[in-house]
């Protein structure tokens, strides 16, 4: 299982290198050397501090309240210090391998991310393709739209038994659940984007006699890109929501199953660490798509 996970390391985080790395790096330039440089750095430091300090203070406050609430004798949940004592190995080293089932959370997250990448990738391809069809053709819209409107309200996990029955294997079922969850916002947003292409652009294309393929690449996609990326962003969020639930039920390696496993062996501290991981990765995924959107749609939104 760890082999494909390794490959996922190579493929997934590449875009994140291109995307702007937020706040964390900025803090490192704090130690000033001499007095004039200090004077120069001061406004910069203040502006950095005004961005970084409020969330840190809030976090400290939450941890403090949590610590007070959960350190009593009858507390049902572990306090932050308890979490640190129980699970510091999980926090400090995400990529340890101590046995076939005793591996770092980083590996588990990567396995989950790999499923999300496949399911979400398929959803993006199919969603944009079908969305384009529905957006372009009135008959396709009349035929398909009501069905999509019904199907999209089905909760992700309701698909799981059906997909388990169809695929007879946990992994493709989980990927199918991701696919079916993420596709609706992508599809519907794409079709709205295509339907909203201004008549002016269509006139320009007509005067230039662009053929269908040129029209698709040169007018349709760029014009609908802001809508498509909104769909992708909602889709990736939903996919990440669904993968954890799906993995809880299907088992195997993955962050969702880890939580379920920890619950069964009453390791509450491990679950809390996993929650932080999940939240953080979800945030990164969202930023990633948003960053990609600003690069791709530069200009379009500014009109």
């Amino acid at each position, binding site marked *: 299982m760890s082999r494909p996970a390794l490959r996922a390391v190579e493929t997934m985080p590449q875009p994140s290198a291109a995307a702007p790395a937020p706040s964390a790096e900025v803090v490192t330039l704090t130690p000033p050397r001499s007095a004039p440089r200090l004077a120069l750095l001061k406004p910069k430091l203040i502006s950095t501090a005004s961005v970084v300090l409020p969330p840190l203070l809030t976090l400290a406050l939450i941890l403090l309240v949590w610590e007070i609430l959960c350190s009593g004798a009858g507390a049902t949940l572990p306090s932050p210090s308890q979490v640190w004592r129980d699970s510091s190995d999980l926090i400090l080293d995400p990529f340890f391998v101590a046995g076939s089932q005793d591996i770092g959370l980083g590996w588990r997250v990567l396995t989950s991310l790999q499923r999300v990448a496949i399911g979400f990738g398929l959803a993006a391809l199919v969603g944009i393709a079908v969305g384009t069809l529905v957006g372009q053709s009135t008959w396709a819209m009349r035929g398909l739209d009501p069905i999509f409107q019904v199907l999209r309200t089905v909760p992700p996990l309701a698909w799981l038994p059906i997909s388990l029955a169809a695929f007879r294997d946990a992994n493709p079922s989980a990927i199918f659940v991701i696919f079916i969850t993420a596709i609706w916002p992508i599809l519907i947003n794409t079709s709205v984007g295509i339907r909203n292409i201004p008549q002016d*652009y269509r006139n*320009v294309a*007509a*005067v230039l006699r*662009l053929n269908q393929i040129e029209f698709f690449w040169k007018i349709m996609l760029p014009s609908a890109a802001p809508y498509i990326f909104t769909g992708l962003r909602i889709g990736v969020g939903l996919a990440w929501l669904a993968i954890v639930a799906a993995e809880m039920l299907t088992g195997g390696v993955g962050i969702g199953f880890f939580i379920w496993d920890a619950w069964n062996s009453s390791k509450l501290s491990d679950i809390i660490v996993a929650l932080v991981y999940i939240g953080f990765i979800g945030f990164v995924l969202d930023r990633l798509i948003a960053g990609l959107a600003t690069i791709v749609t*530069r200009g*379009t939104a500014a009109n």
Partner: protein
Amino acid sequence: MKQAPYLQIDGVEKTFTRGDTSNHVLADIHVGIDKGEFVSIIGHSGCGKSTLLNIIAGLTPATSGGVLLDNKEVNEPGPDRAVVFQNHSLLPWLTVYENVRMAVDKVFRATKSRAERHDWTMHKLDLVHMAHARDRRPAEISGGMKQRVGIARALAMEPKILLLDEPFGALDALTRAHLQDSVMQIHATLKNTMIMITHDVDEAVLLSDRIIMMTNGPAATIGEILEVSLPRPRKRLELVTNTTYIKAREAVLKFLYERHAFVEAA
């Protein structure tokens, strides 16, 4: 027999039908336009000027009658009838250069090399004085500049006829005067055939060889065609006191506000 004109509009009628209601917009339009001529179409709002231009462009099919350009029937849009749209219609995700280059690449893919297409694009941008802004995006330039790029894109297709749909309608008076001068200059240099739709009487008289005056709709048609026999090049300041200019202006104004005054309630 007289030689057929370059652009011939022959008995064009247009009726828009939506459900049970049909709207007779244009009736019995006959006119011929010669090569190199600058013709304006003027009339009140809703008289079907834009519809007529769209029929010439091929963007809207005529209900009956037809348009012949250079002895070929017009039945679909094409780069030989380039349109300068009222709201510039530049693609916002492309730079000024890319907007023009896209048209150049499409029209001259087979006949010009890469370097020639680049030179052609830059030459057209030079012609409208926009070469300096080649790497800007439409959102970053003014309305007048956008319209210049729109003209450059249309010229870059090397059209047989250039169709301008109220090209300066959305611009302020000073910018409009600049662009009118530019268009006159381009017309003098390239000897294009141009058809322009306008609301502006001064603009029509200043730029045109002939002014087509449309009656009010429904079933609008050509009310009168006025020859403007002013010599070119025309200078806007000198024309202010020119009797031919004043007479032409008066004729158009009389047509629009006396004989075919716009009745709001109609």
